[in-house]
């Protein structure tokens, strides 16, 4: 009398969570990009309007938002390369777990470097 599905190779494991993460970050980046093209298009309204809207973005809350956005992009990019390796590399499926750990380590290093540089530029006086 099983009350819940037996464990599978996939469900609830690394493969599933990396897919969930890839999906969520993909949607977040998409909606950012819609707004981003709209704000960039203000260069066709007037120099003053563009510079003042971009200027309004330059505050600590937005700095944290930009840092979060880049965190999402870095995960989506590195994990996307992992998905490509799984599909095209002969041993990709066999090493998908190890590759996920590699993705996470590279993510920590690159995101750490980005966050330190961006937050010290954006939050520090200049």
């Amino acid at each position, binding site marked *: 009398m099983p009350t819940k599905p037996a464990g599978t190779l996939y469900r609830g494991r690394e493969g599933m969570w990396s897919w969930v993460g890839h*999906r969520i970050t*993909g*949607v977040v*980046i*998409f909606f950012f*990009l*819609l707004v981003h*093209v*709209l704000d*960039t*298009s203000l*260069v*066709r309204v*007037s*120099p*003053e309007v*563009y*510079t003042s809207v*971009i*200027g309004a973005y*330059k505050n600590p809350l937005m*700095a944290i938002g*930009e840092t979060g956005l*880049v965190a999402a*992009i870095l995960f989506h*990019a590195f994990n*996307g*390369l992992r*998905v*490509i390796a799984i*599909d*095209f590399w002969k041993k990709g499926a066999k090493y998908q777990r190890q590759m996920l750990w590699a993705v996470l380590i590279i993510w920590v290093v690159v995101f750490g470097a*980005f966050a330190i*540089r*961006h937050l010290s*530029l*954006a939050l520090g006086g*200049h």
Partner: protein
Amino acid sequence: MSTIQAPRSGNSRIALQYRRTSGSKGNFEMLAWLFMRLSGVVLVVLIFGHLFVNLMVGQGIHAIDFGFVAGKWADPFWQFWDLAMLWLAFLHGTNGVRTIINDYAEKTATRRALKTLLYAATVVVVILGTLVIFTFDPCPVLNGQLMDGSPSFCPAP
């Protein structure tokens, strides 16, 4: 003992009377799958380059204003970079969101409505973004006057 049946998907291998779809879709889904991977590789370069130049170099985000954009788009290299990034990111992202809508929107009418909205938004924003890159004017003039906030290198009209 028995041989394994051929899979019932993949129209080309299946006798006409057993085909589930009209076949009019061709191999669109396979091409979309391939496009996600090819565009992904190129987007890594384009987006990392964009973020590095706009956020990491020099003053970082403090440097971004109208003059910054004018400086970049004076160079066809960056115009082309941004154009490629705009088109690839939107085709990739729109196809990705299409997949997600297909996965979660179970009613046919809902699915259609959401996808129509998605495609409409994509078309509008990609056309807008393309026009912005190619019609950009670093020294815009209004009523015979240089607009306020124009970069200091602009000559008097």
